[in-house]
């Protein structure tokens, strides 16, 4: 599957057919019948290129494989197939020590700022550890660096010697961001960084990420389920369903002219904070199928209003239908023609 490459620059991250499957547990029945336990394909041959300076968002519902995708491409779980090129080299073939070095450039911000900070370390210790492990600066400069980092994420000097328990959820997420930034990474995977915080704090964190991207020329791979957050933050968006990428487009294009029936349904399902535009009809019927027994053909066909025979048998390839807009649907043209916007009439 050849995904589009803008001619002007080599991508920072080039993901080719990345796959991640988990073997199910071998149960008694498997022993008795000598059968193989079911396999879950969490990420199914996903190809994607990320340019420097982008905020690429991956959206999907739970079980879509978006978090596994983020972890697999940093080798926090070992992918079962494919390649991930970072600055032209395949990360998946790096030795342990080589990977350790590369992690300085590849950082992660976690969803839960409560469990991803060591409760026994002060903020100063947490940040200093990252700086010294990766030998970012001489020991004598560590303190000054820690202060600069706190300032960068909107925390003050007075916060340095406190423990994670002394902070609110939003402040902890700022600490998590400071830790990721401490080693001056080239690429950050942010896994639902704003979904555990309240809406008033969520806006603070999102604005911080936008500011940091501008100031530090960051490249972000942003994993999210909230489409309005994605609309606000992203430059480009990919939509996942049951391990497969079903649509990729620049932000505005995706939200204005979605071409996959699943993307269209997601946009209609999101509750709009506008009582004048209420929706009456259910956006997508049915439930996502079990990833242990995904339907043949297009995974979305049992819930799709446009499904026909071909959808039940043949997997649609992710194809470029116009520059930068890729979709995996047999009926994308009809879907595009039928789209009248997600806005609801009174």
């Amino acid at each position, binding site marked *: 599957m050849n995904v589009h490459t803008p001619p002007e620059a080599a991508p920072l991250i080039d993901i080719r057919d990345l796959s991640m499957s988990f073997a199910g547990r071998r149960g008694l029945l498997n022993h008795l019948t000598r059968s193989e336990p079911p396999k879950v394909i969490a990420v199914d041959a996903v190809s994607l290129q990320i340019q420097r300076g982008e*905020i690429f968002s991956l959206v999907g*519902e*739970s079980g879509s494989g978006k978090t596994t995708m983020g972890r697999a491409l940093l080798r926090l779980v070992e992918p079962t197939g494919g390649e991930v090129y970072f600055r032209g080299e395949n990360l998946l073939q790096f030795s342990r020590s080589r990977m350790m070095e590369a992690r300085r450039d590849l950082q992660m911000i976690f969803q839960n700022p409560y469990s991803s900070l060591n409760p026994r370390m002060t903020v100063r210790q947490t940040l200093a550890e990252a700086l010294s492990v990766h030998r970012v600066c001489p020991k004598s400069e560590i303190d000054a660096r820690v202060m600069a980092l706190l300032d960068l994420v909107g925390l003050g000097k007075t916060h340095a010697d406190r423990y994670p328990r002394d902070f*609110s*959820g*939003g*402040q902890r997420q700022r600490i998590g961001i400071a830790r990721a930034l401490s080693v001056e990474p080239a690429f950050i995977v942010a896994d639902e960084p704003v979904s555990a915080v*309240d*809406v*008033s*704090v*969520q*806006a*603070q964190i*999102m*604005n911080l990420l*936008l500011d940091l991207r501008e100031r530090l020329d960051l490249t972000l791979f942003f994993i999210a*389920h*909230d*489409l*309005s*957050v994605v*609309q*606000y*933050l*992203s*430059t480009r968006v990919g939509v996942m369903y049951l391990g497969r990428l079903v649509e990729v487009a*620049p*932000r*505005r*294009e995706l*939200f*204005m002219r979605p071409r996959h029936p699943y993307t269209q*349904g*997601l*946009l*209609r*399902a*999101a*509750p*709009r*904070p*506008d*009582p*004048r535009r*209420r*929706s*009456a*009809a*259910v*956006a*997508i*019927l049915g*439930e*996502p199928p079990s990833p242990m027994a995904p339907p043949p053909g297009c995974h979305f066909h049992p819930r799709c209003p446009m499904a026909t025979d071909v959808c039940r048998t043949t997997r649609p390839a992710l194809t470029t239908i116009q520059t930068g807009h890729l979709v995996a649907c047999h009926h994308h043209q009809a879907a595009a023609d039928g789209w009248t916007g*997600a*806005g609801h009439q009174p």
Partner: protein
Amino acid sequence: MSALLDVRNLTTRIPTRNGVLTIVNDVGFTLNEGECFGLVGESGSGKSMVCRSILRLPPTSAALTGGQILFDGVDLVSLPERDLNALRGRQIAMIVQDAIAALNPVLPVGRQVAEAMLEHGIATSRADARERVIALMRKVGIPSPEARVDNYPYEFSGGMCQRVVIAAALACNPRVILADEPTTALDVTIQDQILKLLVELQKDLRLAVLLVTHDMGVVAQNCQRVGVMYSGHIVELATTQDIFSQPRHPYTAGLLSCVPSIDPEDGDRRLQPIAGSPPDLADPPQGCRFHPRCPMADTQCRSGAFPLREVAPGHFSACIHHEALARAGGVLPAATSSATHAGGGPA
């Protein structure tokens, strides 16, 4: 419309190591027949505790220390436990956030839906109850209910478990449904299905629904009236239209300007976050509890009480600067950071 549920001056306290916390502070609102009333707020605002206090279900350590909860004219606060039990599930039923945890894992779902019917004498026999359960399961959109009625909760998805919980809530034809974040644990496409189901049932059965949520989108799509809670207080109460088009409390206005739009057509305005974070209930600020975060706060806001007052017909606000906010079209004065922003990101 007559008020089916009339909550007045409700106060709930919880003793903790850091002293007694007032989780719900002098809260009042009415819920009418056939109405969906939203209670919206961030975590720790006390919205769930209001919901639980109505059925006197807060954690055992908590105490209802004041106020009245009139249901059809009867005060639930002073009602003996036995009489309240006769109402629970029968007249007033609850739908909780975590449906999977709410169901007993070792009982078939049908038995659980039937339980309240048999308890309250709605069903005459087990066979009768089973028939009614199957009909209810069909009504809430569970496919092939005849087969599913004997399944255990683990055999259902999260969305289907929530449908089972809704079926159990409807089992005794209650008049009031208390829905505490009923879709927060669900994916957006399933949330959409469950909320549409609730609204349809509410209209068909003329139910009064109290919908507790943190999501302004859920409020906008489903509620007729809304109460906005902050730090244990209702700070604004109005029709959904008015809350969204002309907020009269800076916290409401702040919440609305924090919510990103899903529509690129709405423009690439930079969100205006509310500064700081919600106060610690163990040590709340004096005066208006929102004043340390409020861009409109002045010296008057730092002391005294701020009760809800009617500022326009049917529109209540606890802010003394509600007129200034109304004159500004419900838009808060800009905080120190730049008000404009080049875009949600270059597309």
